[in-house]
């Protein structure tokens, strides 16, 4: 994982977070994040709600100040970088005036920068030339999102931050949004996007930074993050699973991480899935056995510590 960072020391990091924490009263939203982004990387900031993603993005944008630690964007403070049009962001919701037209919104924003791309070009890039005269209030959620995207592209930013950018988009909208981001970043733009859609992180990011409870818990390619949470899941149908201490027996097997029961359905996570399968087939009435490797979702739940909260009426070790 650290190989990602070594190369960054030779050139100016797009984003450098060093020992960043952020407290809101007694609540520690961010508990110490170190993160270097190299120019040109597309990075997913993945984590459950409340993991500290938005707070971290706010600090990179200078909308929040870290309680301790430092934030640098291309060697500048966030505010200096924004004043030079180096950073822009597409926010989840809001941020638009309903009584302006699409074109007016882009013109207004463009007028605030020293240098921008022509308004017409940006409208074209975001695919909203056809609705340029429409009032923002009359635009659909997807159209408003493309407008935010157009505003973010105006200054030709070197770093683009996207906070849950595809929330509320349909599958097609999501796909076309990402294809334009991809196409766009070939010019060397760094993209950091917060998401809780695993498939989105998996499909579109070069690198996944997994955060949980205000800390980075994994950092690497999708394959690397998946490999971090090793082990397999064994599922089977086992009538009367709860009787005769059967669960305890299974739980005592070497390498078993957790055992869940829902009715007749048994779900076991273990490092040595073969041993568990052998035991189930020899010593119990288990049937419909199914063994699966960890998906990214499993790794995600595993590394963010959400597994334990999700076991229903099961038994967990």
């Amino acid at each position, binding site marked *: 994982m650290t190989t990602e960072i070594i190369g960054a020391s030779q050139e*100016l990091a797009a984003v450098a977070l060093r020992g960043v924490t952020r407290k809101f009263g007694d609540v520690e939203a961010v508990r110490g994040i170190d993160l270097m982004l190299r*120019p*040109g990387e597309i990075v997913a900031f993945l984590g459950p709600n409340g993991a500290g993603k938005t707070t971290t993005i*706010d600090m990179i*944008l*200078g*909308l929040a100040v870290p309680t301790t630690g430092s934030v640098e964007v*291309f*060697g*500048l403070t966030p505010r200096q*970088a*924004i*004043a*030079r*049009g*180096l*950073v*822009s*962001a597409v*926010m989840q*919701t*809001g*941020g*638009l*005036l*309903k*009584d*302006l037209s699409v074109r*007016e919104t882009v*013109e*207004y*924003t*463009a*007028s*605030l*920068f*020293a*240098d921008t791309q022509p308004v017409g070009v940006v409208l074209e890039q975001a695919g909203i030339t056809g609705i340029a005269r429409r009032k923002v209030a009359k635009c659909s959620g997807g159209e408003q999102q493309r407008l935010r995207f157009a*505003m973010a592209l105006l200054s*030709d*930013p*070197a770093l683009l931050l996207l906070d849950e950018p595809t929330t509320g988009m349909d599958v097609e909208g999501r796909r076309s949004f990402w294809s334009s981001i991809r196409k*766009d970043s*070939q*010019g*060397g*733009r760094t993209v950091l996007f917060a998401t809780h859609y695993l498939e989105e992180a998996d499909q579109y990011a070069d690198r996944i930074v997994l955060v949980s409870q205000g800390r980075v818990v994994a950092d690497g390619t999708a394959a690397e993050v998946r490999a971090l949470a090793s082990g397999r899941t064994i599922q089977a149908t086992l009538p009367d699973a709860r009787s005769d201490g059967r669960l305890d027996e299974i739980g005592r097997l070497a390498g078993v991480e957790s055992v869940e029961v829902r009715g007749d359905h048994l779900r076991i996570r273990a490092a040595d899935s073969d041993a568990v399968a052998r035991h189930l087939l020899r010593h119990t009435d288990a049937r419909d056995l199914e063994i699966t490797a960890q998906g990214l979702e499993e790794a995600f739940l595993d590394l963010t510590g959400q597994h334990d909260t999700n076991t229903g009426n099961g038994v967990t070790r």
Partner: protein
Amino acid sequence: MSTMIDPATRRVPPRGGFNATVLRIELRRMLRNRRTIIFTLVFPAAMFLAIGGTVDWTVDAGHGNVGAYIMVAMALYGAALTAASGGAMVAMERSVGWSRQLRLTPLSPTVYIIMKALLALVLGAIAIAVVNIVGVIQGRPSMPVGVWIACALLTLLCTLVFAALGVFVGYIVPGENAMQILGPGLALLAFLGNVFIPLTEGSMIYHVAELTPMFGVAEVSRSPLTGDLNWVGVVNTVVWLAIFVAGAAWRMSKDTARV
């Protein structure tokens, strides 16, 4: 599209982002709002013509006549409404996250407030001009040109009280509802402020009215005409300005969690 973006080539905009494009778009935005036009431009002029029918225009009042007196009052009412709706818009823009969006641009927050204040003054001036032009066309108000100009300028200055009120109310009553409250609210204050109909001096209601926010600015704005500026009016204006600015600042500071 650039091959590799070089941060060193990037410039900061001059004057903190202050520019004419924003002023033009904002002005157009306010002027195409039908409610703004009716309540701030048409209504005060109509009130001026309507109230005029019930009193004797030509009776002397200070350095001019009653027609001039009513015209100054209606201009104040119109300008107060524009300023209040402009103030309420600042709060509305924060509530929909537009201010946050602007924080992602080089625009400095101070320049934002300066541009908003400038717009409030421009719109206030338009509202005052409309009533005055209607007055000129109708031909009944009469006062020396110097007094006429002095009244108009003082009225414009006084509208800042209501810009602050607008921001304050805009924060307490979120979204578009702020104007629903400010409209009737300001009408009531105008009655109490001796703006629509003259209250009997020394009466019970007059003593209450003296304490309300529009009473002071009304006294101040027509002082060049009446030639009489008493301390009650001045104190009233200053105190209410302080209260509204403090209230607006208080609500704004409560709202900084996610600017």
